């Protein structure tokens, strides 16, 4: 068993109006000094077997094609073996 985690965030130059709304809420609810909030997505993929090189390649391709839209988002992929 392996677990693959993919974090997807809007690129820094892309406005995140949801993050901005959350920033406003945090401040309203008593947190001082919130200078920025960015909201992202996290995917946890459970895989049977190991993450071979070929599978890692497929994962990276699909992270860029499906899980993230590289026009507006960056992604980070990491493998957590033996969960």
């Amino acid at each position: 068993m392996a677990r693959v985690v993919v974090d997807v965030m809007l690129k820094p130059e892309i406005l995140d109006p949801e993050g901005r709304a959350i920033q406003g809420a945090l401040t309203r609810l008593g947190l001082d000094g919130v200078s920025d909030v960015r909201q992202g997505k996290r995917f946890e993929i459970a895989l049977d077997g190991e993450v071979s090189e070929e599978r890692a390649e497929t994962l990276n391709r699909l992270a860029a094609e499906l899980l993230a839209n590289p026009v507006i988002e960056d992604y980070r992929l990491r493998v957590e073996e033996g969960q």
Partner: protein
Amino acid sequence: MTSSVGVITFPGSLDDSDSRRALSAAGMSAIPLWHGSDSLADVDAVLVPGGFSYGDYLRCGAIARFAPLMTEVIAAAGRGMPVIGICNGFQILCESHLLPGALTRNESLHYICRDQWLRVENNRTAWTADYDSEQEILIPVKHGEGRYVANDHTLDELEDDGRVVVRYIGGNPNGSFRDIAGICNDSGNVVGLMPHPEHAIDPLTGAPGVDGQGFFTSVVKALVGSGSAR
């Protein structure tokens, strides 16, 4: 022979029947196409309609892009077939990389539903040839994720090549870069826009008027002129 335009229905499409109605009113045969099919059923053009395909899961249009029929649409668009994406259809065409850029959450975070003035800045596409250059038209917008974004290089290229097809005037509803409401690909056969021309084709129900008709009458002429680009 009457030209035929296929209108794709995905799970969650909303405006497919209004789009078929608009195409029929313009004198075309409107053919319903199912997203899971792998055949374009010999249509001469394709309309990707508005709605919430696959519930907008992941990102708007991100899953619809991989529907079996979209593979055929992408290939046909490459051969020059006229393709238009309206609202969710525009999002799907961007996700498919048939058009550059992406549509993101409205700057205001509000879902916008209103009549919107647009300026037709490119009337040389298969879908806009019936409009005058710089013609101002009033058609509805209704979306929560219609903010057009792209990097500066892409935006400059779109501007320089005259590929901004329609631009918001009298107020930008969603924070789109450079007030962009719709764009086309290099050859002008693929057009995407957020506003809904199919909701402005009937004096009775097209709330603001009939300014949307031109998109549908344009493609009739494009198809007759080319003898179909199948």
